[in-house]
């Protein structure tokens, strides 16, 4: 029923920024189709007029004071510590604009 084509898999991989090999595309197409097949059993539930649940806490609009608290902020050195390739306090990113 919910059958994915290898084109679908390629499209989704592109959206998710994943580089997949031809072999992976073949494998994931089958595996994901099986999972989708299983979960379509949800269609047996009547959800007419039911509100969706996105979280279960019952909390609404939790505010905090709009005030800068230095103890909650990473220093520039800390923020950059995860990478070796930084220049003058900046992260190096891939070029997205052509020369």
């Amino acid at each position, binding site marked *: 029923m919910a059958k994915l084509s290898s084109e679908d898999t390629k499209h989704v991989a592109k959206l998710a920024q994943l580089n997949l090999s031809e072999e992976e595309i073949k494998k994931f197409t089958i595996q994901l189709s099986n999972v989708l097949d299983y979960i379509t059993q949800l269609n047996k539930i009547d959800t007419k007029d039911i509100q969706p649940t996105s979280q279960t806490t019952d909390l609404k609009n939790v505010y905090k004071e709009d005030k800068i608290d230095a103890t909650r902020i990473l220093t520039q050195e800390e923020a950059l510590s995860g*990478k070796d390739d930084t220049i003058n306090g900046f992260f190096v990113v891939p070029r997205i604009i052509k020369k």
Partner: protein
Amino acid sequence: MILPKTIKETKERLIRKEFSCVQLVDSYLSNINSKNKELNAVLTISDEIAYRDAKKADEIIKNLGEEAFNEFPLLGVTVIHKDIFLTKGVRTTAASKLLENYVPVYSATVVNKLEKAGCIMLGKANCDAWAHGSSGENSDFGPTKNPHNQKYVPGGSSSGSASAVAANFSLISTATDTCGSTRLPANFCGLVGLKPTYGAVSRYGCIAMASSLDSMGHITSSVEDSRKIFNVTKGPDGFDATVARHSGIPVKDKLTIGVPNEFFVNGLDKEIVKNINEVKTKYESLGVKFKEISLPHTKYAISAYYIIQPAEVSSNLGRYDGIRFGDSRNKFGDEAKRRIMLGTYVLSAGYYDAYYLKAMKARTIISKEVYKTFDEVDAIIAPVSPTLPFKLGEKVSDPLKMYLTDIFAATANLSGIPSIAIPSGFAKNKLPLGFQLMGPRFGEDILFKLGEMYERN
């Protein structure tokens, strides 16, 4: 040295000077060094920090004596953190090659709270990469083994957390539970695993999997210890807006446990059925009543879960671009890729309503049904898993089969209620058996009371 089995025993023997905290650390680390090669439960050993904190704890006990434990209720309690919890200055990998060399600059709230209460961290536990899995076999650093029988999986995703406590590498461990990832490994390793109410324990500083489902749990050898750890980790921290200040639901003298017939269906292992019947008999002899209940929609929980969870996973793992920390997205393993793909698909144009919105509506129906049950009963009993622990490699090539391992876990995560896995003996093949008790939101004390009744009698 014979290692203590509980927090109480650790405290009493420290007070009696039977051992020091430094000697405790010596013993646990020597267990890790001699057995971790086989079990692969621990990814990073933080021995320097362990000895620093042990010396500090010994000093406190020397100065304050017994009173030290008023201010530091977990003084001398060793902990191994699932490698999903950030630990400042100690490598945190999520068991993924993508974060192989990542050293966090801050610690998770749970880590900080335990440290403040006197816990001594020994290291970081292996797990399924990004907490995706039910067997531990999805770790990019190799599978963890079950100490009861190394041919079997310890359960996942908190595989190393359970294996480590069962192998006496540490007294307690931290774990996370998005769909059974604390309860299943505790169950497969003969231990107690708590999945707290969503919003009871801060998620701050934990590598997010599915943000509306992730619960910060822990694994201990007893229910009594599980309660003590929860009393330290719970409560608001000002960093996770979903955490509520809640004093917990009051516990009645006479308790009734609901038995949902939908959780005792065909396909459930016969030894598990027999064992849970014995558990019921024991409870009845202690004055607990049982009542048959019906939760007809919970059989759809795993389907709703396998839409909501991957959707949230695909969003949370979107941040790993290798720019600010970690390696490139090419380092994601197969299971992470599968879930990112599935999540991206169910959220993509044309499929959102059919899958994601449908699942969120199903979540409403399942949750309401469960909440209503607690008008009639104080807790719900169910199996943790439909099968006994399985062998390494048995389900690894069939993702759907692996996903269905957690068919009884999903209800608690979707509805945000607490659940505790409690060991209840051994099967014929000498592997652990257990059961889970679910309670109303913020009903942890009911679960602890029932759990302690069972383990004391």
